[in-house]
């Protein structure tokens, strides 16, 4: 009886669909405005839920004369799980109702000094690292496109540009912070002092 159960369990296991192809990916950013001669960096975030896989990255296309670095070009993705207690300092991606730790691939793009103002595209491709054997192997492929707008005249000094900073910095928002409230509290004596000064002024004028 027990033997039969074991066989049944084994058969069930054999026919259970096992995830053998797939990984998740996202880009921290996909566009940047830079001056010719500048370089820009992007990050690709990767994870593979419940199974280990390896991805190979390569540049598919870029404008002539541009230089593109992919670091690293080969990425091993360990079998990731949802983290119930994420660790401080590690980077996570919100996936469904949980957080999964991500691996990062850095893409650095350098433009030549003589790049003409305009919009450019750099394409990166990630291919699952798998050998062709026993028929037709299915391989997962993913594209990552980066849109670069080169603007204005080349700068005198070669610099590395950060991506477009979307973080709002100029918004005027009136917030009474705790600190401000504290300051207000510390200035309690101002009104009575002003009243006294006014009274004194009136008094001396009459005199």
């Amino acid at each position, binding site marked *: 009886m027990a033997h039969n159960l074991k066989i049944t369990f084994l058969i069930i296991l054999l026919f259970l*669909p096992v*995830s053998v*192809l*797939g*990984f*998740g*990916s*996202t*880009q*921290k*950013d*996909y*566009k940047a405005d830079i001056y010719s001669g500048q370089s820009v960096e992007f990050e690709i*975030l990767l994870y593979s*839920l419940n199974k280990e896989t390896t991805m190979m990255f390569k540049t598919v296309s870029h404008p002539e004369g541009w230089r593109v670095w992919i670091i690293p070009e080969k990425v091993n993705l360990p079998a990731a799980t949802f*983290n119930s207690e*994420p660790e*401080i*300092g590690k*980077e*996570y*991606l*919100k*996936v*469904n109702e949980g*957080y999964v730790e*991500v691996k990062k691939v850095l893409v650095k793009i350098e433009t030549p000094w003589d790049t003409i103002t305009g919009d450019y595209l750099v394409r990166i491709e990630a291919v699952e690292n798998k050998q*062709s*054997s*026993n*028929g*037709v*192997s*299915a*391989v*997962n*492929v*993913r*594209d990552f*496109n980066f849109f670069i707008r080169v603007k204005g005249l080349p700068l005198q000094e070669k610099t590395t540009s950060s991506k*477009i900073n*979307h*973080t*709002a*910095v*100029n*918004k*005027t*928002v009136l*917030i009474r*912070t*705790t600190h401000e409230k504290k300051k207000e*509290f510390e200035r*309690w*004596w101002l009104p*009575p*002092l002003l009243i*006294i000064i006014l*009274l004194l002024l009136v*008094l001396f004028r009459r005199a």
Partner: protein
Amino acid sequence: MKKIILIFICMIFIFFLISKPKLNITSSIIFDPQSIWIPTIATHSVDGDVTSLINESDDSTSVVDNNEYIDITLWNETMNPSATDIVVIFYFEVDVTDTNFEWHVNITSPASLAGEACLIDPNGVPGNYSCNLTAAGVDTPDELNSLDVRLIGVENPDQGPPDNGEVDYVYLNITYILIPYLQVSLEEPPSITNIPQNQTFTVNATVYCQNGECGNVQGIVRYNSTGLNPDQAISTIPGAEPFYVLEQNPLSCPTNPLTDGEFCNLTWRVNATGQIGSDWKVGVLFSSDDPSVSDNHTSNSTVSITTCTIDIDAAWSRIDFGVLQPGQSIEAPGNQNHLYNITILDTTTCPSDIYLMGTDLQNGTSIIGVGNITWNSTQVSQKSLSKTYQLAGSSLDSGTNLTTFYWISVPTGIPWGKYNGTLYVKGVQSGTQP
């Protein structure tokens, strides 16, 4: 007359000074009038450990001769770090003492306060004597928690034997005030988090009421609108950028008012509507309606808004046509069981397109062109696979299964055998060219 008016005005000013608004410190403050600390490590300069002798108010005493001393380096209590208005009195009971015997109470730690705190001369009268250590500078929890005292016996002037005193019970009498405070922590999101644009994430924070009654406590989830740290409440208006909450903001603790030791956990669902590539600091500010309880902000998490996540999966790794015979046309073995599913996992956050591309099949130097493989997402018709990407499914929502089917027509004039090749499965955000 003018002088009288001037004096009157001065009196008004003094009245204002006296009636200066004070923080409303009422019942929520714990006032501990007497906390007694006793030594747990006390060492006589000659006799060694005398801890038990000086902790008992009986006949067990430690005898201190001229110029000998007792070092007290550990106490049985520690002071709450949030305590204020600390007053520390050092007491020691002397059972028998030489008429000329006097006692020096020295602070040996913390180093910043080291030196003589008191000189006490009982004039030969046994009894309980005290030294105000707060007058010598011990008035913070840190100073008190690192307090070491040296009690030195000195016969002044030295007239020879008998020249000693007997120390019995040594202790500290401490008074202090505990002001209640909010101990806060941010549970979610993790300290560095990426959220695909237009996705919802959870902000979860906990507040503990410590040291007394904290009143009615509320939390407000905020982000950095203008500076480096959160300074703006996240909007509750749907579509607001860079975030909006689906709940109320602020939220009140459901068990208000919070009592000493009570905690409350608040959760907001936040939609990340900001621009892709933007980074934000998110945290929660807790406050109480009791003005004596200070606001407290959690640590912040950095939230980066990213492109959509694409996660494509398959439960198969290859199509095994087996040993191929010249001229035969065969169906892939998994077609009948709908094996060749490509799944847009529910972790994908935007509609996706699936493209397929193949390579020629090889067996040594023999090649079967990729066009001999046909495929489709239905079993009704077939189209040739090619070396450029072909659309297999478009605008597929997360959770969708795309079932594919494959066939091969083996050309004549090639050797029989196993042929190997590759099928590329590419997932892109819907509308993007592969």
